[in-house]
């Protein structure tokens, strides 16, 4: 059986194609603003080519993510939390929670029996879009995402920035640059602000378990974020190799049930 999951995020669209529950292809591309539907179609063609199949070979397609309604060929849409939950249990059957943090939203999902969900906490409005905050700041500071990911743990500890509002955080960061603080130090401070927000979502209601919590989404690939979050929360996250494809993978797994 061949199924596909399409995760249309704020920054990137991800596609995973599963053949008999094994990943046959995965593709990502920038979502692109207004023409998101078109981007989805383009990347869909690329993914089919990678897997060496035709659209008719695919039994079901499930879409998720902020732009899930833009996937015109999807048989079904599911909310991000549901896709994240399925991905977590698919990758780590023993998992008890999953954190899905991308450019736009952050979800912390507490898993129940089987494929059920006990609780979902979403980030509140302030400091929404944690991934976006990092991307924008990287751009502003002239650093690549890889350079931010490689920041040393101590960087950014002496000059913190506002951790409640991205606009204030950015202004604080510019202020630090103005007084000559090294841009890597500034990037570290912004990363810390993002981590403070993430841990407040983790602490909202049911606290995730220390060793059985999965971390997926674009931010899970940023080592500076995951290491600092681990230190702050004490959680040893289970991070899959292709963490950014978590949502698309979950959607593809859901498609196998249909």
């Amino acid at each position, binding site marked *: 059986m061949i199924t596909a999951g399409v995760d249309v995020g704020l920054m990137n669209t991800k596609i995973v194609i599963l053949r008999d529950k094994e990943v046959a292809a995965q593709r990502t591309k920038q979502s692109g603003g207004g023409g998101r539907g078109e981007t989805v179609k383009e990347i869909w063609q690329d993914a089919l080519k990678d897997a060496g199949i035709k659209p008719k070979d695919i039994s079901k397609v499930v879409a998720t993510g902020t732009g899930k309604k833009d996937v015109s060929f999807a048989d079904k849409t599911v909310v991000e939390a549901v896709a994240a939950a399925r991905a977590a249990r698919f990758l780590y059957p023993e998992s008890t929670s999953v954190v899905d943090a991308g450019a736009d939203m952050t979800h912390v999902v507490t898993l129940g029996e089987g494929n059920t969900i006990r609780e979902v906490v979403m980030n509140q409005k302030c400091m929404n879009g944690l991934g976006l905050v990092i991307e924008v700041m990287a751009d502003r500071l002239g650093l690549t995402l890889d350079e931010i990911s490689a920041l040393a743990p101590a960087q950014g500890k002496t000059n913190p920035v506002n951790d409640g509002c991205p606009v204030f955080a950015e202004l604080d960061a510019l202020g630090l640059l103005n007084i000559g603080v090294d841009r890597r130090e500034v990037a570290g401070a912004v990363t810390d602000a993002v981590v403070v927000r993430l841990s407040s979502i983790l602490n909202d*209601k049911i606290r995730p378990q220390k060793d059985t919590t999965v971390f997926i989404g674009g931010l899970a690939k940023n080592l500076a974020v995951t290491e600092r979050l681990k230190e702050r929360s004490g959680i040893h996250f289970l991070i899959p190799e292709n963490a950014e494809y978590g949502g698309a993978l979950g959607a593809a797994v859901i498609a196998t049930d249909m």
Partner: protein
Amino acid sequence: MNKQRWETRPLEIWGKAKELRAQWQRSINEAAERPGAMLAHGNTGEFDWSIGFDDLTVIEDNPVGAMMASKSDAFSRKCRLASEVRGWGREICGYVQNCWGSQFLGYEMDDGAFPFRDMSIPFPDPCDQHLKRGQQCMDLSPIPRWGADYPMYLGPLDPKREQAFIDHTVYCYLQIIDDIERIFDHKFDDEKMIGSLNILPALREQALRISRLMTHTPAPIGQKELYSFYTLGLLTKVDPKETLDFWTSFADEVQWRVDNHIAAVATERFRWMEAHPSPWNFLKYFRYMEKYGAVCIGSQYSHIISGPIELGEDGQFHHIQRKKPPEGQEIRTREDAFRHIFTEARGYRFKDDEYCRKWTITDFAKGFHVDGAIMPLWRGGVGCTLTRKEQGLRLSEMGVHVLHYEGSQPGDRTDLDERRFLDQLDTWMESLGLEKLEA
């Protein structure tokens, strides 16, 4: 998946409700014409000033501000701006911002002249602004303002302190009456006030009948209906007897609906509660939730007409046995009457529950058999959010699925992201395995 469908139909009492509402509006318009007749913020406590003072009409900022938010976004924006340019910040309660703004502009939503207040008697609430709300109309023109005090102490109950609180409150009210009589030459009708003492308990009885009936599945009415009628029992009553008759007929009709399995939501399969109050500019989320077969059975706030209630061992709601004035104590004077009211009222406001009776929120959830709870987090006017997170935790611990969303204050739409709110509802429902039953 539950495929059960019940019959549903609108309430018959709607016509009467509209009539009462129009009558209240007329009383406001008439009072605006009479000098010294308009009293701001004077009836959400245990006592309505217009019951003792025939010449007075009470206008409360909360329902007026809520109505503005609900009916005209453009007008309430204008009002908030008018208020902000005079230095009042976004943290101020949205209801108050709407009313103050309208006062600054000098006109109302329908372009009619703003009914300027002649005096103001706000009462305190767990919000730092409830008592402050009288300030603006006093600053604008030199009208008298009093505070109808409600002292509270959160430590262990001390009978002596309680007695001092009651004495203080009673003397506050007596002082206000003397002042109004002296300044405005209005006459306080002791007989009418004493005579009305049995109306409120009778009204509570009828409202309690409705609360109890709403524990049934399918719920005979939902939050939408409660919100449509609850001000008729609390904030906008004109004639207490008429109000009581209305609530009696309302309760009879709800009983009939239960007997005949008439549902608020035909596809009910998920019951949720709220914490007070909702974003008045965006009530459409109730209908949105109905697409999932979800019915809102109300909140402690919208069941307020029942008075302080608690869940008995029989699984049914009862009135909390309030402290009674000593046996045989006759009520002959206004002081006796106020002493009676405030002895009964001590410590039983549901807004104080998180301090005084933490279990009532979970009892509420249990009694109404709810599956979920939506608990808003408002940024301004803190009184409408106080302890919401603690209550959310308490509910979550008992297995109720809790959803928080953010906004400015129920009367201010500024920070409420409607699209995001609906996305949150989708996430909430789908994560519980519920899909939309209709597009």
